[in-house]
């Protein structure tokens, strides 16, 4: 019956115990959710990055986009050989403006540059370009 003598203290102790349990619960939730939240966020970030990578490097329109390179220079200056997902192109006698256009376009295409060669031949430029996608 000692509890009865100290029932007021007992009430306070029980409430305090409840407070401690709640505090522990909150801390556990905070640490576990922070951890899982960070993991989940990383997963979401990686997933989104993957989607972007896939869109960029597995773009089905890349082949058509590459074809636009042919329109930048007259056909007399161009050698074009496209097989499947590989391209070998030769540009000859380009002016510096034409060279800039060709190089800018090549750099903006989502293709893997296997070889890019530029030669200055008495003021005009020859370009050899190999790529795959």
């Amino acid at each position, binding site marked *: *019956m*000692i509890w*009865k*003598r*100290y*029932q*007021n*203290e007992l*009430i*306070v102790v*029980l*409430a*305090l115990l*409840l*407070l401690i*349990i*709640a*505090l522990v*619960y*909150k*801390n*556990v*939730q*905070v640490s*576990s*959710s*922070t951890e*899982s*939240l960070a993991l*989940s*966020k990383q*997963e*979401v970030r*990686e*997933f*989104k*990055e*993957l*989607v972007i*990578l*896939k869109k*960029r*490097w*597995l773009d089905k329109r890349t082949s058509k986009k590459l074809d636009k390179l042919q329109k930048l220079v007259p056909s007399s200056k161009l050698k074009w050989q496209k097989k499947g997902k590989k391209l070998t192109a030769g540009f000859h006698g380009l002016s510096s403006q034409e060279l800039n256009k060709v*190089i800018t376009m090549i*750099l903006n295409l*989502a293709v*893997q*540059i*296997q*070889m*890019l*060669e*530029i*030669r*200055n031949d008495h003021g005009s*430029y020859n370009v050899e370009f190999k790529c795959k996608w």
Partner: protein
Amino acid sequence: MSFLGNSKPLLLVYRNMPKQSLSDTVNIMLTPQFYSLKKETLPLKYAFQVKKIAPSLFDGLLENTEKYDYLVYREGEVWVFIAYNLKAINHFLVSKGIRSEQVGKIFFAQQALDKFTAPVLLGDKDALAAIDGSVVLIPQAALEEGSETLTFDERFTPKHGVVLQGAFNSFLSKKQAIALATIFTLFALAFFLEGRRYSEGSEVTKAEIEALLEEYPALQSQYTRKSIAEKYRAIDKNERKKRDRVKTLGNMIFKGVTVDTFKMDDKGFLVRFKCTDAKVAKHLKELSKKEGFSSVKTLTGNIVQIEGKL
């Protein structure tokens, strides 16, 4: 064990009672020697309202130095007020060998008014009897000889009683305990809610992942995702490097500098810039070093060669 407290033995407590030796908890009923009684007809409906005016009713009747508590209840149309001093009661009980932890509930004889159909004898001299709607103490000598008396037992136990708190032995009063317990409970509730909010927060991100998986079913397998990511991250990194190099080299062309040859493949690059004179070549060389190219050479004919790996 009953939590109602009414199944416990009921002990009648009066001033000249013998010293007790209790082994179990008891409820006690106090004689009018331990409380002051007042009856009033008031136009109030609820006990909590009536209880508020109780101290003013006993103003001047009770000792100001002592702290009194009040029990209020209705008897028909009349409100009954009982003022009692718990400290004094407890002190008396202790003097009679009754510790506060042995006391279940405290009742007042007035509460069992209807049970006092005949007097109850208290020791050799006194008796407890109901007179004019009040339970009072009378001398036994005042009783008619051979008149009927009642035996006091649990039948006298009223429905509601007062709890003798551990206030006299405890460090905290009931009010303090309730206040502290309320504060702690409120904080506990806040912590529980906060914890719950955190657990729900991570569920939002999980839902986002599920939505992405639904949108791209081909990427549902973690293995597929990993292999695609590894492959295309490497491609992305290498191709970005190639384009960065070309752009950096392109930005290094200024007046007096032209590209002589440039070659780039998967492994690296080699570029030769033709400069108009040695001064331009020197400036280009400095610029290339500034851009972080380490393998820079000046060849004959003011040609600057830069080589690098990818």
